[in-house]
């Protein structure tokens, strides 16, 4: 009887984990389609494409959480206003990064190949394969669920985590301003302006 109970519990857990992973996969699929539809529209100006990407990212990425993680030890020393300014700048920076990756988009096909739930870290991992004429590239999305909504917490392209790379990169620059987030915001603003010019022109 005990064994039956155990088996029943394992079965239910497995089904609910799989359902969660599939739900995340379907959600991600629709959000990616949204971004791609913007890039498929050749008549849409670059500025409008970027605005659509930025909005989709703001809605679906855990921007504040990622921003805080990337800021590392400079976060605690900063004032509330500086933190808010940094979060605003970081979210735009994230959108510019992803939008820039989409610049070379030329109707490549993509497929969400696998989704699984990492019970230990409470994270859903969704694999995506992007196909080109000469090969394919693997992208893994890390997705977390909170209050019935999914949020992307990281993006891995060919084994390289966007968030870990950003943290390392920001840390290197923060070191030069003695981990002063206020000073860093000036550099981030300048970088965002330069990236924005490149994307929209």
């Amino acid at each position, binding site marked *: 009887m005990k064994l039956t109970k155990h088996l029943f519990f394992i079965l239910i857990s497995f089904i609910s984990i799989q359902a969660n992973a599939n739900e995340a996969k379907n959600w991600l699929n629709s959000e990616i389609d949204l971004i791609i539809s913007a890039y498929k529209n050749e008549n849409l100006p670059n500025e409008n494409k970027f605005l*659509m990407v930025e909005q989709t990212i703001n809605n679906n990425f855990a921007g504040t959480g990622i921003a805080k*993680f990337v800021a590392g030890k400079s976060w605690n020393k900063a004032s509330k206003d500086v933190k808010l300014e940094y979060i605003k700048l970081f979210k735009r920076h994230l959108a510019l990064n992803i939008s820039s990756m989409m610049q070379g988009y030329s109707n490549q096909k993509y497929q969400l190949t696998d989704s699984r739930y990492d019970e230990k870290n409470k994270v859903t991992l969704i694999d995506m394969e992007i196909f080109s004429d000469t090969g394919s590239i693997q992208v893994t999305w890390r997705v977390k669920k909170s209050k019935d909504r999914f949020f992307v917490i990281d993006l891995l392209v060919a084994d390289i985590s966007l968030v870990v*790379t950003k943290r390392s990169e920001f840390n290197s620059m923060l070191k030069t301003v003695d981990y002063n987030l206020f000073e860093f915001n000036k550099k981030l603003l300048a970088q965002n302006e330069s990236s924005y010019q490149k994307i929209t022109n």
Partner: protein
Amino acid sequence: MNKFIQFSITFLFVSLSNHVFSAASDDVKTNPEDFETSTYEDEIYDPLEGINRAIFSFNNTADRIILEPVAKGYKKLPSPVQSGLGNFINNLKLPLAAFNQLLQGQGENAVESTGRFIINSTIGIFGLIDVADNIGLEQKEEDFGQTLATWGVGDGFYVVLPLFGPSNLRDTTGMIMTMMTDPINAYATNQGQSWAIPMRTAANAVDQRSQIIDEVNALRDNSVDYYAAVRSSYYQNRKAAIMNTDDDVLTPLPLISIEFE
């Protein structure tokens, strides 16, 4: 008129989705202690940073002036030509990959790589066609840097090599070992065709670069510190190659928690 309609649609889309979702996204909070333990990748051992940055800057200029334009030109070749050249270059790496797999105790992979080399070099017309992939023999790359890491040799310090790019002490040693032991290079030298060695290296660089044109440009155009971004990417990529496991298992998971107020 057309432009006005496009702008209106975008504006409407942005405004509506902003009202519906953005508030939820902005409420995403993290716990203060989330970041206390996550120091990985923050401090890569780079005692030669000053020199490395100077070489990196030189490499970056060389990339912009030579490698990137050539890679873009290569991308314009018909895809069967690109695939053929890529397959040919990859096929030449297989004997040494199989040897390294053997040194790492990966007997099955070594047999697969040897099988790939034999099939692609014969049926696949000197490696131009990847026939082996169609029968389930996948390309699995291993080099001396990975072998040394498997044997317990640490990274050493980070180093940027002129023209060759990011590396570390262990991987540079591995690269020298590759140059010295590669049977294809040895054969070319024995036949008095040493010119083929730098040609092969250059062709490999162009082929590899052509596959990441957009990714490199995105990183270069949007990094507050491009040098640090490349350094981190290099370490993550090598770690994944050494461990031979799925990227999601191996890449450290950022400790990002999502809590609503």
